[in-house]
């Protein structure tokens, strides 16, 4: 009896040992070597994108003075937006003082690539691939080649947990993680702090960045303004520009889950009410819900004439289509968080997306004056990427790679070699970072802030059947609405 169990157990152990020991993690051949011919020009352009910006600067500063009245837009000219902040001044790459040639740096990231977020996140992988290829052709990070390693959670948190543990157990530990969902970031917040792995998070709920009490910055650094801050900015804009007869009343229509539940807080309600924008209710729907008319009608019944949605891709698309399907689109302003204001929404809602408004905290494909955007567009075209990758994820990916390069360069300069650049070293760099990766978004983490705090308000418009995002304002400063934030009532 015991003999049999014992034998069975031994066999199992041997099998597992063989499996674990035998297979060292397969070396992912992420990037095929670049075509030699294309490389030099690309190289120059990347350098140009970063350095030439100051020269372009004169052109962009020009309109600043006149762009005070916000809502009127120059319909035809792609707006050379006046930056309240001079992004270019912060996008000068740091020079290498060390030579890391022959070494390899891995950029670890994971998130929902095949669940409800897939439409937005999949282009991120494509973008990283392209940006890394260009970077490596340009000499990498002080000579070291960058590669990406990623995994898909399919939106399941147990996956996120398992993947994180796998990455955190690596030797050396990842120096910097890239995450893109609030839920994952909230789940892993304490663990990343414990493991001393700083995280660049594109999911910026309060709990993800500032913890349960909303005032404990951890090891997570947001790459966007907090969702509450974005909503606060939207309230400011509505307060100034509302033209309806009834006073503006907002109804939240959000996805169920950590992301969707991140916007509507007592503090935002109080803040917006003080601006004269009342929040009259919040409804939630499951990602992929084929019908939200019930929720729209409920919000309308409680007086809402503005709907603000914290959802992305199919979420805002469904809201927009259902508002038309019940014939109420003219009576409602529909707005959404930055992720909603994306080409993926337009791809799903098509014509129905017209007029969607929201905060836009980075430069967009339509900001053709920006050298960063020019390079991204050029590469996107050159790589023959599918139209559905022309979205926020692709842009963010380029910014992430540039930021990665900058952080690693700074840290390596300070440490003198790559081996001693670990999580805490990167965090030290992050804590005093003022940098605009690709010149498209200013990340300023000084003064203990963990998220950027600028955005424009933009709107989806169609010109000759082609959708674009039209900026309605220049860069505005968002209020800071996490508990203990500067503007928290």
């Amino acid at each position, binding site marked *: 009896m015991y003999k049999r169990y014992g034998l069975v157990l031994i066999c199992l152990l041997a099998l597992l040992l063989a499996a674990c020991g035998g297979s060292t993690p397969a070396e992912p051949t992420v990037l095929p070597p670049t075509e030699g011919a294309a490389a030099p020009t690309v190289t120059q352009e990347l350098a140009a994108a970063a350095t030439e910006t100051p020269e372009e600067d004169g052109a962009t500063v020009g309109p600043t003075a006149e762009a005070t009245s916000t809502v009127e837009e120059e319909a035809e000219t792609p707006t050379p937006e006046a930056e309240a902040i001079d992004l270019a001044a912060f996008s000068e790459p740091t020079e290498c003082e060390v030579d890391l040639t022959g070494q390899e740096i891995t950029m670890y990231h994971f998130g929902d690539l095949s669940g409800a977020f897939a439409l937005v996140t999949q282009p991120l992988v494509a973008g990283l691939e392209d940006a890394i290829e260009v970077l490596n052709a340009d000499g990498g990070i002080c000579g070291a080649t960058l590669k990406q390693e990623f995994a898909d959670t*399919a939106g399941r948190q*147990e996956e996120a947990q398992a993947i994180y543990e796998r990455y955190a157990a690596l030797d050396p530990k990842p120096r910097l993680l890239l995450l893109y969902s609030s839920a994952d970031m909230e789940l892993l917040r304490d663990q990343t702090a414990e493991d001393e792995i700083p995280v660049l998070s594109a999911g910026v709920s309060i709990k993800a960045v500032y913890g349960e009490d909303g005032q404990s910055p951890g090891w997570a650094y947001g790459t966007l303004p907090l969702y509450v801050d974005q909503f606060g900015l939207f309230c400011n804009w509505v307060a100034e520009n509302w033209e309806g007869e009834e006073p503006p009343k907002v109804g939240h229509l959000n996805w169920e889950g950590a992301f969707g539940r991140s916007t509507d807080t007592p503090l935002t309600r109080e803040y917006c009410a003080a601006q004269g924008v009342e929040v009259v209710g919040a409804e939630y729907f499951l990602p992929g819900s084929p019908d939200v008319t019930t929720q729209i009608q409920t919000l309308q019944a409680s007086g809402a004439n503005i709907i603000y949605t914290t959802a992305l891709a199919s979420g805002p698309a469904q809201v927009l289509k259902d508002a038309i399907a019940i014939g109420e689109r003219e009576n409602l302003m529909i707005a959404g968080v930055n992720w909603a204001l994306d080409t993926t929404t337009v791809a799903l809602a098509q014509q129905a997306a017209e007029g969607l408004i929201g905060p836009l905290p980075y430069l967009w494909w339509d900001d053709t004056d920006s050298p960063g955007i020019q390079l991204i567009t050029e590469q996107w075209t050159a790589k023959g990427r599918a139209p559905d990758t022309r979205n926020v994820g692709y842009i963010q990916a380029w910014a992430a790679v540039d930021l990665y390069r900058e952080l690693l360069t700074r840290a390596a300069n300070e440490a003198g070699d790559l081996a001693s650049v670990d999580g805490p070293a990167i965090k030290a760099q992050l804590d005093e970072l003022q940098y605009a990766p690709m010149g498209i978004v200013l990340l300023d983490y000084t003064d203990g802030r963990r998220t950027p705090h600028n955005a424009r308000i933009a709107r989806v418009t169609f010109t000759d059947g082609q959708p674009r995002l039209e900026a309605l304002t220049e860069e505005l400063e968002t209020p800071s609405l996490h508990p203990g934030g500067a503007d928290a009532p």
Partner: protein
Amino acid sequence: MSAQRLSEWWPLALAFVGFVLLPALDLLPTELLRLLASIGTTAISVMGLNLLLGYTGQVSLGQAAFVMVGAYTSAILARETGLSFWLSMPLAGLAAGLVGLLFGLPSLRVRGFYLAMATLAAQFIIPWVIKAPEKLATLVGWLTLGLVHPTWDSTLTGGATGLQVPAPVLFGSTLDSTRAEYLTVLAVVVVAFLFQRNVVRTRTGRALVAIRDNERAAEVLGIHPYTYKLQAFFLCALYAGIAGALQAHFRRSISPDAFTLASSIEQLGMLVVGGAGYLAGPLFGVSLFRLMQDIIVRVTPTLREIVPRLLPFVAQTDVDTSFRPLIFGLTLMLFLIYQPLGMAHGVRQLAARWRARVPSR
């Protein structure tokens, strides 16, 4: 005589060295311990399923939900009252068992298929309650016409985002290493296994098997199927609860999205493939699938390169998610068709054949 004893005992001694001594002396790679710990945790829950499905012939589609009850019970007890893990773990098992009874009571009276449906309901209702206790409070308020106003809210359960859970403490030292996790899980697995074996060998176990094989006949023999089925179901959920507590305290965080129907189905599949109705079935099945998952994870980067090249319409990022259910489903199907009694049965057959060929002594 003593030589024979020795030959009976040496494999067990070897297993002891392999599974206890080597890890305790930190001679096995952490990665392996992590894998073994995860196998052990899941196996506990699947052992519970084995008592229900393998020995009593009832299906539960809600095992993950009962794991969830255990995980949250233990986590909340530890967070709110500071109760020691060693007490909160059995309490978590008990809580899961009781919640299980709540769902099992109505359906165990009727055909087996109805328990599957009731547990399917549990699989949806339990996460819903844990994610938003305040909504349940509202409903209770309505149903009692406003007489009762419970004030539950999601601060207790962490709502949609889950909870951070403290690591277990033993004699003043925090068990947060993989080795400690592994050894704790191993101890619980051994206890759970022995308990399962004892249940099966007692009168209760024989009654359960009688019910599985022919409920009517069992009844004629004076066995009350309802009582025994309830017992089996209670034990099944109890095992799930224990597994949940282990998971919560060693993963250190729990999320309400982690206990899905897919995970319930996966556990059922592991049991069937491993061999339902065999004591070793859960260990076999869980090991096989965890191993396959591990291999899939390791080859994924390569697959990402190869598959889209072979099948140009496949997106690189879809490779990650598709292979796991694909291979899981395929394996389960092949077993159902060609080896419906599972790996344990196959091993037994092989062993019998081996013994027949080599005359012992």
